[in-house]
């Protein structure tokens, strides 16, 4: 398939960096690790800098630019080599790829920020366009539905890639959610600043997912995952929420 994003497909590298994101690190490390394993299985050397922390998005989105820049600079230091940086989360990838240049406009390290940004790729996009990963499905027949994160879709231009991966699994049936692209109501601080509005959004989101009849919901963004899975757990939903990296690894590991 042809990439929908604005940026070019890089040549297949020998080594990649992995940026785990703070939510993955603390709450979904298995999903993070699964992404690394998939890359390693494709023959890449995967480097996980222990000095990485957070992309700085929470601060930037709240208008705290200096704080966001300070944290971003720590990442520049942690990822010094010119390798691609793979991120298992569309939202953090969007922050680094799309917002670093603007966040550092006019700063002394603007060029460094831009160079860093241009190395950032969302995991599923990279798996499809750069590695063209082939997946041997070893799991039982299963129906799943996809939840696309807003930032993945509208900032990173990752629209069909994750679904393409799901389609490459022979025993998995993908059922489309007509409200797939609708925001789940997470929005970082939005969920706690406006809990009731956010609650209404995630409640509707869960209903639309259940409406598909799928047994599992797969997503590529840990903010959405935390929000939707929390709401599903609270309402006793029969649907099982998953991160795509973990899902792919599990289905193909035999």
């Amino acid at each position, binding site marked *: 398939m042809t990439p929908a994003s604005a940026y070019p497909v890089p040549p297949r590298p020998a080594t990649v960096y*992995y940026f*785990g994101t703070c939510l*993955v*690190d*603390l*709450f*979904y*490390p*298995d999903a*993070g690790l699964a992404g*690394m*394993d998939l890359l390693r299985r494709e023959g890449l*050397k*995967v*480097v*996980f*800098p*222990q000095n*990485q*922390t*957070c992309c700085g998005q929470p*601060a930037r*989105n*709240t*208008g*705290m*630019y200096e*704080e966001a820049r*300070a*944290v971003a600079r*720590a990442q520049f230091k*942690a990822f010094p080599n010119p390798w691609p940086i793979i991120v298992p989360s569309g939202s953090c990838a969007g922050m680094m790829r799309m917002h670093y240049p603007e966040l550092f406009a006019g700063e002394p390290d603007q060029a460094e920020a831009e160079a860093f940004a241009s190395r950032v790729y969302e995991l599923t996009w990279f798996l499809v366009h750069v590695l063209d990963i082939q997946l041997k499905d070893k799991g039982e027949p299963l129906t799943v539905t996809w939840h696309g994160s*807003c*930032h993945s879709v*509208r*900032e990173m231009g990752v629209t069909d890639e994750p679904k393409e991966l799901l389609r490459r699994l022979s025993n998995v049936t993908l059922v489309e959610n007509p409200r797939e692209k*609708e*925001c789940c*109501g997470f*929005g*970082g*601080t*939005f969920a*706690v600043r*406006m*809990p*009731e*509005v*956010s*609650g*209404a*959004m*995630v*409640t509707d989101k869960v209903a639309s997912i259940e409406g598909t009849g799928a047994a599992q919901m797969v997503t590529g963004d840990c903010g959405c995952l*935390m*929000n939707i899975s*929390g*709401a599903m*757990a*609270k309402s006793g939903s029969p649907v099982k929420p998953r991160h795509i990296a973990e899902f792919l690894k599990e289905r193909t590991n035999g």
Partner: protein
Amino acid sequence: MAETAAASTFVERAHKVLGNTKLRGNFRRAMDGLMAKRAAQFADIAAWKSLRARGAAAKRRVLARLPELLEQLEANCTANGIKVHWAETTHEANSIVLKILQDHDARTIVKGKSMVSEEMHLNAFLQKHGIEAIESDLGEYIIQLAGEAPSHIVMPCIHKDKGEIAELFTRHIDGQPYTEDVAELTDAARRVLRSRFAAADAGLSGVNFAVAETGTLVLIENEGNGRLSTTLPPLHIAVMGIEKLVETLDDIPPLLSLLPRSATGQSITTYVNMITSPRKPGEKDGPQEVHLVLLDNGRSRVYADNQLRDTLRCIRCGACMNHCPVYARVGGHTYNAVYPGPIGKILTPQLDGIAVAGDLPHACTLCNACVEICPVNIPIADIMVRLRREAVHPSDSPAVMGAGCKHTATEAAVWAGWKKMYASPALYRMGAKMMQRFGNMMPGGMPLLKEWTSVRTRPVFAKKTLHELAKEQGYSDV
């Protein structure tokens, strides 16, 4: 105790709507329908993108030299016989309109749809001075009967269902029986409005696009009421924000193609009115006098800032509202502002100041649905974040009134702490360890967690961080 709308916050107002399942259902259905209609109009994505690029470029060109083009507009309108007035504030604009009306002894006016007149709160102002203004757009007429403000900029009474409208009509229109038949309701309104058109001393309208090159006022509408308000009475007053300008007539076709398709999914509106002058000798209809009031109301302040300036590209199609997941849940009145939805969230704080509308930019998840569909490609989300920044930074751009007024020592301290932890890897790893160990024991009633768990279970800290797992699994660190 009942709270006044002005004193309440977005969150409090949203609470009321969220509890109203009927209203929520009305909005959701209406927005779903509008989104589907728009999508059908722009099924060819490549064509849409190139059209949008043309529309955005037209508005961008105007904004590159707005002052000069406004002068050109004034010169050309004047040459055409249209009298041009400048108003810096809404009060000035109101006074200008009043003066024109008084000069003509006008007692009643019929109004076509105009958001700028809402911005001016013109009706209330005129009423105070003994002049009756009747809204002639069906939606506007309905909310005028109800004593409400528009809840959407294109479909002002989208929050009402047939039953509510039927009830309003029986109460306010003499001899009108209760009926939910849409055709009958429309007929009733038409009967009332027709007699008003004939008797009105003046007509007032907004302007969708003013063409600098020719001094033409372009007005689009579906009901014919705009045409009646601008041709039947002997006096026509048009009010517009200074940003509603285009350079040449050639800019009109792409924008005319974008606006109704984005707004209501119509390929074009039923009427496209182009007004170039008052009635000329030998012409059978049209007003004897046409006045144009150009309103600034903070726009030139917005214009002065390179990033914020993009806000002024807006052609008021309302598509961003239709696609906003927050708007669809809470409706337009929750914003407590003339312009609701995404564009309102960035425009209102810029026009009215952060102190008044500083919470609006936070009523957004930055999902970018509005950015994706905006026909003139306004980076709404980026401007939203910029305004959040202005709210907490005392010394920034003078373009925003009240910058820094939402700055609190507590929040500053929280973010300083956040920065310290995330900018120093060693500290972060230590913090992560603590979280793993004690995070799951946090009391459920503590701030943030309490709000979060109102509809969700609490997130569970994993036993090992990815940092640790990566090390264990032999992933290299450098």
